[in-house]
């Protein structure tokens, strides 16, 4: 399994500011994924970046991947109160049965 570890554990910002969350993992990966979880609900897939990619954009999301440092970052630009949630990174290994192990997540609070 490939465990993602998120940093910081908690982040509080004002609406309109950017939010940056970091993720580290331990060994080689096929891809790295970010998920979002609203309180008490299921996780929703946000974005996947493959090991041969360095940066990926999706709307207000920007993900980077540095395989030499075994780290990734998720940037949410122009944050909104509705972005308040927990964010998890997961490192995927193609030959590991696709089993994904989650870290503790970053709890983001965006204040209106």
């Amino acid at each position, binding site marked *: 399994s490939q465990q993602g570890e998120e940093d910081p554990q908690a982040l509080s910002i004002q609406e309109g500011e950017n939010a940056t969350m970091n993720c580290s993992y331990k060994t080689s990966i096929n891809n790295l994924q970010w998920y979002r979880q609203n309180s008490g609900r299921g*996780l929703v897939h946000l974005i996947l970046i493959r090991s041969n990619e360095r940066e990926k954009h999706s709307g207000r999301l920007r993900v980077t991947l540095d395989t030499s440092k075994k780290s990734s970052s998720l940037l949410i630009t122009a944050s909104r109160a509705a972005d308040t949630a927990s964010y998890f990174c997961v490192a995927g290994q193609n030959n590991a049965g696709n089993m994904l192990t989650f870290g503790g997540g970053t709890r983001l609070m965006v204040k209106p």
Partner: protein
Amino acid sequence: GAGVSQTPSNKVTEKGKYVELRCDPISGHTALYWYRQSLGQGPEFLIYFQGTGAADDSGLPNDRFFAVRPEGSVSTLKIQRTERGDSAVYLCASSRLGSGTPRNTGELFFGEGSRLTVL
């Protein structure tokens, strides 16, 4: 249905009782995962199915926990002799294809979870 469906959404039981939690994955998804999540924690892997077989059950905490997927679609997580420490949200996820396939994106689709409370 369009998404992963889990039932019941909430289950309250007494210590020592038997519980079954059901997961209906997205149609055609061959991979199915069970996770357990405690308050303030990330999801903890329990078991992974590829088709009908359990490809990895290394996350099951002890032999009170068991899961089946007899026809390669619906899965049931079974917990015997429940303990208060079993209280958590049990999440199910499915994925389109298994490992080693070029079309597999690895994206997991989660249900809303079953919240288990053991009194």
